[in-house]
């Protein structure tokens, strides 16, 4: 590295970006030194994504300067940004499923021969070299559609390595990674860092930020709120900067008032997704399902909600065996599911807040043949208050709300159905810290009100925080069940990594 360490690899000065009616970035300063991991934090809507898009050449700032190695630059396309050594790794996988991994790695700049022909040999050689550097076990020739999510993420990361990057921006890179895959990713980040690359790391996960970063910059409402040195700060301080107040992260320790067993599952199998799964959940408790992505947790939830037919096994509601052949029958049994993917499965984005909440019961909210607007408003108002949904009006289409408010709408939708069992799959995925704790408190509160709650999560702090009991899953099987009092992080990690299974074998 020829740059002196004092010279930032990248510096943004007074960046302003406005959209019609919105000042998305309001004079933001930001810098990354070579060989530094600089975390960028802020709640959803704070302007992180806009800032990243400015960085990546996808947006042009209205005011302010971007400087690379202290030279002002103009980047009008992602390609130009990349040529300047600034690479963005997207939060949502930005891959083309029908193309090979190699083509995806070099998307937009495939090595060419004459006549615009793709130079396949070079392409595969280069990309295989990169994949090897990342310790990937697949080759560049594989079609991306056939890769696991984690491997797809690796392809995404491999893209950053195609150029001699000065700055790599990671936007929520761990959202869909398992713990072991995270380890690989962190190795890569540290490797880049050692080579003198400046890293911008965006995440909602405090633990990751504190493990990885050297400095933390916080944005709120499109404005710069300060930069902290990681070693000299703590989560509280960062959170306060982010949300402008402090946050109660402690678990509410009141022992649950347990009711009867509402839902029981005996020997449920749906090969190859999960096998011989048995558990029970009682009114007034939160049952956590913890495991790696792909361990079969979501699939169990889908089966309980009538979206899959099990091969064998029994489902009992209030002690009586039931057949759940469709979501409608699940709903009529009092089972509801807040799905994993809010935007694809949970909400009709162009519908209003109110209509999304009342959607499952719209058939019953009628006076005569018509949907009763009054009844709908009543439900909407009730749950808007109860869940503190922030929306300008009931007419607001949910697509423009923040992730936290969207999630509350999905939860409100099911609470309004007065379910017995509420299954919540990844309740806080992609939700900022402030809303996260609100949702955690809400889940606890719901249990206290007598709901039987099942929470599926890949985040250990979350599971530990909300659950009364925790079921650990590995490869479609339940490895162990813990009670909140005797669970330790170590035993949990072991259980979901299948370590007990190997020992037993």
């Amino acid at each position: 590295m020829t740059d002196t360490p004092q010279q930032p690899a990248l510096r943004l000065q007074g960046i302003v970006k406005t959209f019609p009616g919105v000042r998305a970035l309001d004079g933001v300063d930001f810098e990354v030194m070579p060989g530094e991991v600089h975390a960028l934090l802020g709640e959803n809507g704070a302007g992180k994504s806009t800032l990243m898009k400015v960085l990546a050449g996808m947006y042009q700032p209205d005011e302010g300067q971007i400087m690379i190695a202290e030279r002002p630059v103009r980047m009008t396309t992602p390609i130009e940004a990349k040529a300047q050594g600034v690479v963005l790794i997207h939060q949502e996988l930005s891959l083309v499923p029908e193309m090979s991994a190699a083509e995806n790695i070099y998307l937009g700049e495939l090595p060419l021969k004459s006549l615009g022909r793709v130079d396949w040999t070079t392409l595969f050689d280069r990309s295989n070299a990169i994949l090897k550097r990342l310790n990937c076990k697949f080759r560049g020739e594989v079609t991306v559609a056939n890769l696991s999510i984690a491997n797809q993420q690796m392809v995404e990361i491999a893209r950053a390595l195609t150029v001699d990057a000065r700055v790599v921006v990671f936007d929520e890179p761990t959202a869909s990674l398992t713990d072991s895959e995270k380890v690989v990713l962190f190795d890569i980040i540290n490797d880049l860092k050692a080579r003198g690359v400046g890293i911008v790391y965006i995440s909602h996960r405090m633990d990751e930020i504190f493990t990885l970063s050297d400095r933390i910059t916080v944005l709120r409402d499109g404005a710069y709120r300060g930069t902290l040195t990681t070693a000299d700060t703590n989560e509280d301080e960062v959170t306060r900067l982010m949300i402008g107040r402090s946050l109660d992260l402690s678990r509410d320790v009141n022992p649950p008032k347990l009711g009867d067993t509402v839902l029981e599952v005996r020997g449920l199998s749906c090969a190859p997704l999960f096998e011989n799964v048995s558990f029970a959940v009682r009114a007034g408790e939160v049952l956590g399902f913890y495991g790696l992505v792909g361990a079969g947790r979501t699939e169990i939830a889908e089966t309980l909600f009538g979206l899959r037919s099990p091969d064998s096994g029994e489902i009992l509601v209030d002690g009586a065996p039931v057949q759940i052949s469709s979501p409608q029958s699940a709903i009529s049994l009092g089972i509801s599911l807040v799905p994993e993917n809010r935007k694809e499965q949970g909400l009709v984005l162009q519908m209003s807040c109110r209509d999304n909440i009342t959607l499952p019961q719209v058939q019953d909210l009628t006076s005569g043949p018509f949907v009763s607007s009054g009844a709908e408003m009543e439900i909407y108002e009730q749950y808007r208050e109860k869940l503190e949904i922030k929306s300008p009006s009931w007419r607001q289409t949910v697509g423009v709300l923040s992730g936290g408010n969207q999630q509350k709408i999905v939860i409100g939708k099911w609470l309004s159905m007065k379910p017995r069992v509420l299954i919540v799959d990844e309740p806080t995925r992609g939700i900022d810290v402030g809303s996260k704790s609100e949702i955690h408190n809400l889940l606890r509160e719901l249990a206290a009100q007598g709901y039987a709650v099942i929470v599926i999560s890949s985040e250990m702090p979350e599971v530990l925080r909300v659950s009364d009991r925790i079921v650990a899953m590995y490869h479609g099987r339940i490895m162990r069940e813990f009670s909140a009092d005797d669970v330790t992080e170590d035993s949990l990690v072991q259980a979901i990594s299948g370590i007990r299974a190997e020992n037993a074998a």
Partner: protein
Amino acid sequence: MTRLKAGGPAIAKQGILVAFIVFMIAFSLMSDRFLSLDNFMSVFRQAAIIGVMALGVTIVVIGGNLDLSVGSMLSFATVLVVDLHDKIGPELAIPVMVLATLCLGAINGFLIGILRLNSLIVTLGMLSAIQGLVLIYSGGQNVDIADQSGTWFAIFGRGAMFGIATPIIIFGTMALVFHIIMTTMPFGRKVYAVGGNPTASVFSGIPRSRVVFTTYLISALCVAVAAMILGSRVMGSQNNVGQGYELQVLAAVILGGTSLLGGAGSILKTVLGVLMLAFIQNGLILMGQPYYTQWLVTWVVIIVAVWLDVAAKRGRLFSPIA
């Protein structure tokens, strides 16, 4: 992610309404015959057949699908009802025709709603297959009603109530009923939900297959009603009478701002789209323009109207893609 607010004055969001008003003014200025009650009634009456079909197709499109089979289905229904009129009498012919048409709709609904096949291709296949069915049924002959002046069947296409032609009354009533269904009844809400996000609808306990199936039944029902108007108006039918109607219907629905992606659209705006196309046809002929001018005008109008609509939604005129 910063989101754009749908900006601009409210009128800009009503692309079709703007275009409609512009055209009405232009035609009124250019032809002194245009702006008269008689002419309007005549246009409304002519628009009724396409219009009734467009109502059904609007619901299908809001549900996230397409229906290209309505053209040959109209041929089928009209040939059937006219042919049976003289054979078994109108009181039997109408229910038989409606049932048979609903069966075709049910086939569409089954293939698309239940088997989840792509609606464009299925209805394209049905377009061809039903055209064949019509020809096989009629043996390629035109069908006619012998006693044109004596049959009460004339009421649908030629009759009038309170001085308003029946086709207009039928079209108006159906538009109103469907508007009420789509905006205030549970079924309407479900169609919007299924079209807007089919997966989320299933996750909300909405019987997606049944809803889609029903939209195709409604579409077929609309075709059956259109066939009654058409058969009664013409008192006969050719085998290809509905040929090309599917595109006119679709053009009207699109002009009305219904999104082909599903989940958005409005019955009343479809009515506007239908009237717009009818007025363009009528106005240009009144101005003595050759028939192909209306195609050129329709070209521009469709693109500009939908463009204004899209532009208003995204808050800027040109698409942001590089």
